[in-house]
């Protein structure tokens, strides 16, 4: 386990009390993580000391900002193990990155009848851009369903690739609901063998596991800053240089051009070609600091820490009557655990836990097709990160047990007189 006392001291928000007076147990990290002081300081320092627009001015501040912004790109390149900084595009987030691929690569390469293959476990961010493209150009979106064991097997991927012969295979490196992980390198190889281009939504592994896009060999890899202890409003689109080079720009305007005349424009080279407008400068600088912070802790240790917490939660939750856990067995579970309780809505579980200072997410977690597939309209989800403790897991369990008693049918009768609420 990580030394959580030391790590928690890095995150100022974790010392605050909740509205209910409890200390904060923040277990909603799959939605967005918290930030260590060093990231907050890096963003502040940018604004306090050297902020100006990048790639624009020849004055001192613009030079310093540009240098810091490009250094952030190099840090991100190193974090992903990309081969060059031209392959690192800063976007507004994972959603913006996938939209860029759909609108640029998808528009150029997909035609009527072509198939985009996804898994049923995708976040809406990796579904809706393809639905929109399909509406426009007649391509088709197909999904690989979960197997009987709740997972997607290599065989199922292979079969779907053979059946649909997709032009693109997009999948999550780890589900934001199930707590399952995808064998990225293996699926990428299968997809390449079938002639498909591969997009990996790495939003749920970037915060927890060392990333190696060279080993994955995927064509596009995307993730968000706000889930990796970085600022919101920034994400990364990695693309193989040959692909990005051949793609038309998506957002167009200032900053992404080589030349503009009254007749037309010539786009800039990579990576600026895909960074129209003033980019998220301070956010990129904060992201780089966050990536350095995670590397200093050690992503292998972060991953193991979360898995240990998730196994503890898994074991205890399974003992609660009427509680159903989604996803794989405890041994292969990442730091996410989603569950339903018979007769109790996820919102009520989350509301009850909030009253105990425990923050979890309830709802469909932007995965409606997955929830349809598992037959749940909403689930409660706890997602752990490097600063969470076993004591917080135990508070989660206690709260869920309390909720199961609180909301269980107990022969209540409504007052028949139908009074107006009198308080």
């Amino acid at each position, binding site marked *: 386990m990580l030394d959580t006392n030391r790590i928690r001291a890095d995150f100022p928000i974790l010392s605050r009390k909740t*509205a*209910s007076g409890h200390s904060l147990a923040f277990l909603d990290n799959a939605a967005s993580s918290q930030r260590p002081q060093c990231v907050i300081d890096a963003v502040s320092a940018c604004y306090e000391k050297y902020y100006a627009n990048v790639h624009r001015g020849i004055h001192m501040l613009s030079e310093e900002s540009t240098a810091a912004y490009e250094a952030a790109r190099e840090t991100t390149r190193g974090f992903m193990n990309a081969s060059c900084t031209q392959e690192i595009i800063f976007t507004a987030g994972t959603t913006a990155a996938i939209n860029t691929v759909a609108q640029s690569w998808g528009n150029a390469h997909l035609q009527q009848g072509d198939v985009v293959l996804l898994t049923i476990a995708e976040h809406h961010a990796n579904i809706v851009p393809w639905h929109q493209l399909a509406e426009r150009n007649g391509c088709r979106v197909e999904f690989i369903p979960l197997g009987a064991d709740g997972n997607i097997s290599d065989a199922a991927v292979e079969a779907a690739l053979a059946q649909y012969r997709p032009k693109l295979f997009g999948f999550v490196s780890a589900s934001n609901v199930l707590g399952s992980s995808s064998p990225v390198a293996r699926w990428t190889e299968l997809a390449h063998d079938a002639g498909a281009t591969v997009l990996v939504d790495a939003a749920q592994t970037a915060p927890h596991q060392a990333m190696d896009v060279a080993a994955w060999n995927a064509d596009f890899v995307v993730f968000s800053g706000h889930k990796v202890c970085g600022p919101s409003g920034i994400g990364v689109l990695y693309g193989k240089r040959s692909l990005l080079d051949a793609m038309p720009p998506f957002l167009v305007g200032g900053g992404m051009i080589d030349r503009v005349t009254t007749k037309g424009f010539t786009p800039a080279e990579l990576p600026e070609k895909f960074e129209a407008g003033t980019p998220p400068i301070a956010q990129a600088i904060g992201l780089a600091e966050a990536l350095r912070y995670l590397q200093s802790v050690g992503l292998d240790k972060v991953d193991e820490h979360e898995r240990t917490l998730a196994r503890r939660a898994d074991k205890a939750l399974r003992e609660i009557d009427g509680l159903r856990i989604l996803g794989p067995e405890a041994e292969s579970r990442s730091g996410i655990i989603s569950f339903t309780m018979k007769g109790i*809505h*996820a*919102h*009520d579980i989350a*509301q*009850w836990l*909030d*009253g105990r200072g425990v923050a979890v997410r*309830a*709802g*469909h977690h932007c995965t*409606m097709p997955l*929830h349809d597939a598992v037959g749940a*309209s*909403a689930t409660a989800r706890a997602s752990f990160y490097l600063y969470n403790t076993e004591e917080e897991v135990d508070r989660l369990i206690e709260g869920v047990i309390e909720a199961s008693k*609180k*909301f269980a*049918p*107990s*022969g*209540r*009768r*409504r*007052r028949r007189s*139908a009074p*107006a*609420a009198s*308080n």
Partner: protein
Amino acid sequence: MPNEQDIYEEHVLDHYEDPYHRGDLPGATHEDEGKNPLCGDVVQVLLRLSPDERIEEAWFEGEGCVISLASASMLIERIEGMTVEEAKAFAADEMLELFGPKLTPNRQKCCLLGWRVMQSALHSPVHQDEDGMGGQFGGPSLNEES
């Protein structure tokens, strides 16, 4: 700030476990269904209006959290017997007051789901087939969020 003890007071849990008129209403003249896209809650409201524009009978059905289902029960109990005009004039803040416990903005959406569906149901007559049988298959709702 509200906490869960306030929100889940006895009056609310009573309506949740023992709701007023939860179920089908054969012969409904008006009905609609709506969702809260945040959480997937669904509430259906079924009304039988008299020729003189009064809510003779009101029922609801749904799937959702304590707040959305208990508030729907309270609403249905309250509006039964009202004239259509009175029901239309029954405002969102009156619904929140009827519910009682103070809610955060996100939970207000749960509380107002049934109210919103009731308001649209008043404008959604059930299609009558040639035999004059009331159907339970209203057309697509115009107010569903997605």
